[in-house]
């Protein structure tokens, strides 16, 4: 009697316990799915906000390349043509954009066009100088406000005073759409131009190059130094206090917040050594110091993985220790080190705060061509665009994020490839 009660109790308890077990497992599963869901949501947000930036809106404009207006002749030299009065041609074209525009409307219509239209008119002419004294229909870039409106990023149902485009402008845009004088095409500016105050002609080319130069600096500095340090610590260093100090130092540096490295760059590289501000040289140096621990850890691991018998073989035929290490051990550790380096570079590519500290946040409207030229960097460019009040920059920032993520993805793919291709099992 008693016995069966106890048994029942145990059975019911067991049921409860197994339920509890299920629940716990379910919690874990939910947590994992939640984390992954956030990842998906994040990527979705970026894509949905950003894909429109790869398109731009262009408008068909009839331009009259009249030689009087341009102050050119059919046989002007190229240099003279460069100085032609294209802004006057543009003004004329806009005045005739719609029939019978009043003075105030001309002003409004003018705001539908990008500031870059002058250049486009000029470039078209320089490419086809024979069009002088003819009327040409050319597609020119629309203003960001028009672009955003047509992409549906800015809404037209808000009160007029909270819109970039007023009712008259809206009606003109609608007319353009109706007459098929506006369309959307691939936004080449995004990939060929540097930053700009005007969203429609802002691109990532400048910051991309800046990032490339920065990464180049990081690689040039950190790769050899990391290898030197790892080889020393792994193969030569005597076991003493100083070696221990170096090891502790390296592991602590790995945990120092990146912004502190920025302060180091500002306080020492800029203020003490007087290196040029805002340049990939300084940015790269700071990031190199930051990446160093990552690469050293990878390099030491791959040095450790080389079996000692290889080194012994070399020593046994009379190689010195230096020869044995540099002829046999280091080459075998290189692929692993390179993999670690690429992963370190990928981290460096995404670092923003240290670059802000050393001034790579300045507005740089041209594409840098060297290490000592002021330039932007991709993550800082994203920051600038995120912070910008202008609507048109938001899609730009999301698109720039896509660029940086693809860049990162490729770097990691290369690292994985290297690992699979060259990793040796001893």
């Amino acid at each position: 009697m008693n016995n069966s009660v106890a048994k029942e109790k145990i059975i019911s308890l067991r049921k409860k316990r197994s339920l509890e077990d299920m629940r716990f497992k379910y919690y874990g599963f939910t947590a994992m799915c939640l984390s992954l869901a956030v990842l998906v949501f994040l990527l979705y947000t970026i894509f949905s906000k950003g894909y429109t930036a790869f398109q731009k809106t262009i408008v068909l404009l009839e331009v009259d390349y009249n030689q009087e207006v341009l102050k050119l002749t059919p046989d002007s030299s190229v240099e003279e043509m460069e100085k032609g009065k294209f802004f006057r041609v543009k003004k004329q074209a806009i005045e005739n954009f719609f029939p019978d525009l009043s003075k105030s409307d001309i002003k409004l219509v003018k705001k539908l066009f990008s500031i870059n239209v002058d250049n486009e008119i000029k470039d078209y002419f320089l490419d086809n100088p024979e069009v002088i004294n003819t009327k040409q229909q050319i597609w020119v870039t629309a203003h960001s406000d028009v672009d955003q409106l047509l992409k549906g990023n800015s809404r037209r149902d808000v009160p007029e005073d909270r819109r970039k485009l007023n009712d008259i402008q809206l009606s003109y845009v609608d007319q353009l759409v109706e007459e098929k004088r506006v369309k959307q095409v691939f936004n080449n500016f995004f990939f060929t131009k540097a930053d700009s105050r005007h969203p429609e002609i802002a691109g990532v080319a400048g910051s991309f190059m800046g990032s490339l130069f920065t990464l180049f600096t990081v690689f040039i500095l950190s790769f050899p130094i990391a290898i030197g340090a790892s080889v020393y610590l792994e193969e030569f260093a005597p076991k003493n206090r100083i070696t221990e100090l170096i090891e502790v130092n390296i592991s602590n540096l790995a945990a120092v917040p990146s912004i502190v490295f920025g302060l180091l760059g500002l306080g020492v590289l800029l203020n003490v050594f007087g290196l040029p501000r805002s340049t990939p040289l300084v940015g790269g140096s700071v990031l190199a110091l930051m990446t160093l621990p990552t690469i050293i850890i990878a390099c030491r691991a791959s040095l450790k993985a080389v079996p000692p018998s290889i080194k012994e073989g070399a020593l046994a035929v009379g190689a010195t220790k230096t020869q044995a290490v540099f002829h046999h051990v280091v080459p075998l550790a290189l692929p692993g080190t390179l993999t670690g380096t690429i992963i370190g570079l990928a981290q460096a590519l995404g670092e923003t705060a240290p670059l802000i500290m050393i001034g790579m946040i300045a507005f740089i409207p041209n594409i840098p061509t060297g290490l000592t030229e002021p330039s932007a960097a991709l993550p800082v460019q994203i920051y600038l665009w995120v912070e910008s009040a202008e609507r048109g920059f938001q899609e730009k920032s999301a698109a720039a994020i896509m660029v940086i993520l693809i860049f990162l993805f490729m770097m990691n793919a290369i690292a994985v490839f290297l690992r699979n291709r060259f990793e040796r099992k001893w």
Partner: protein
Amino acid sequence: MFFWSLVLIAVGIFSSFIYGRSRIKLNSKKQGTKSKSLPNYYAQYVLIWCLFPALIVYFSWAIFQEQIIQNIVISKFEFIEGAVYNEGLLLAEIRNVANNPSFADGKSIEIINAASHYSSLRQISQISFYTSIIIIMLLGALYASQKLKPEFHAQHTIERYIQYILIFCSSVAIFTTIGIVFSLIFESLRFFAEVSIFEFLFSTEWYPFIPIREGQTAAEGSFGAVPIFAGTFLVMVVAMCVAAPLGLLTAIYLAEYASKRVRKTVKPLLEILAGIPTIVYGFFAFVSVAPFVKAFGQSFGIDASPTSALAAGMVMGVMIIPFISSLSDDVINSVPQSLREASLGIGANKAETIKKVILPAALPGIVGAFLLAISRAIGETMIVVVAAGTAPNLTGNPFENVTTVTVQIVVALIGDQEFDNPRTLSAFALGLVLFVITLFLNIIALQIVKRYRERYE
């Protein structure tokens, strides 16, 4: 200019190598003895003596040339009485005119003079640069060539040099730490010369906007960092509330329940999460989460600001999830299998085993992981810069706008930096606090984890 000097150096090292090689062969033939090392080592010896002095010259020129020239130009500049100059703009103008004479139109005569002064100095500098590089390379080669005798053991010397280079590489880490500590402390001392350290640590008023007009003192701004510390703490707490349970549960699931295939797919995905640049998280917080938090708050009648501790903290928590999960995963996996078997052996189910046996055993390691995560959260910058706000606000309400240490560092250094102004210097004092706290957390965490590892090894 520097391209051609690189070519020059390249030619120098190439010819020094050839020279060293042929010279030692000649010498040993003359003496009729075999040289102690291979000819290549003698060649490398000459090369090193050629290259290193040249590199030193090269870098000192690259670093200091512009500085020195500008200083000379400015010191000789004929300032007009009463006019106000901005040195940076002035220099930029002078350089522009010097580089591009067509800009000279309409510039004042002083500027044009200074520009020509600048150009001539640059020319002098270039000529002396090339001559000194050539001379120093020749001197180096000359010194080295005296040693090119068969009885000289070049290989030993080269290997010693290699040791020096390796030691230098290893000490870069030490130099970096010294550099960090030096710059933080040095600038912080300048800051604390103007602001009392007690005010900084204990006062609750952060108003770093010091009027730049003459006659006004630093005392008019106030530098009580308590609201900043509180904001940092609040964001960190929110982040940990998100990351700790999610990260830990994910780790437990992956380590104890998940099949091999799930582990193999989920781990790389979590690594993606870890590899996303923080500015991307900032964007995400700003564009998606902050508006959501605001709407959510308003639906409960709480007036949420567009940027809030909650939005920043939640996204920061997501950022930290993979960090916690991978560290905890390691820790859980290092709990000996025998403990698991002992518990399962007496009929405990998995959940009980995890809760009663594994987690208590792994606790120190997990605590260590959490401490590391906290240090990460405190040092994280871009998410909070974009999504937490810049105005100091002493509050415990996560729907409000707060600011953090890292944000204030960025804010203080964006725009004009004036190193005689406590506002700029405050960045370094805040940086010092940040550095000390994160270092402290890390040392403790590593100690805990280490002791934990020792227990099971």
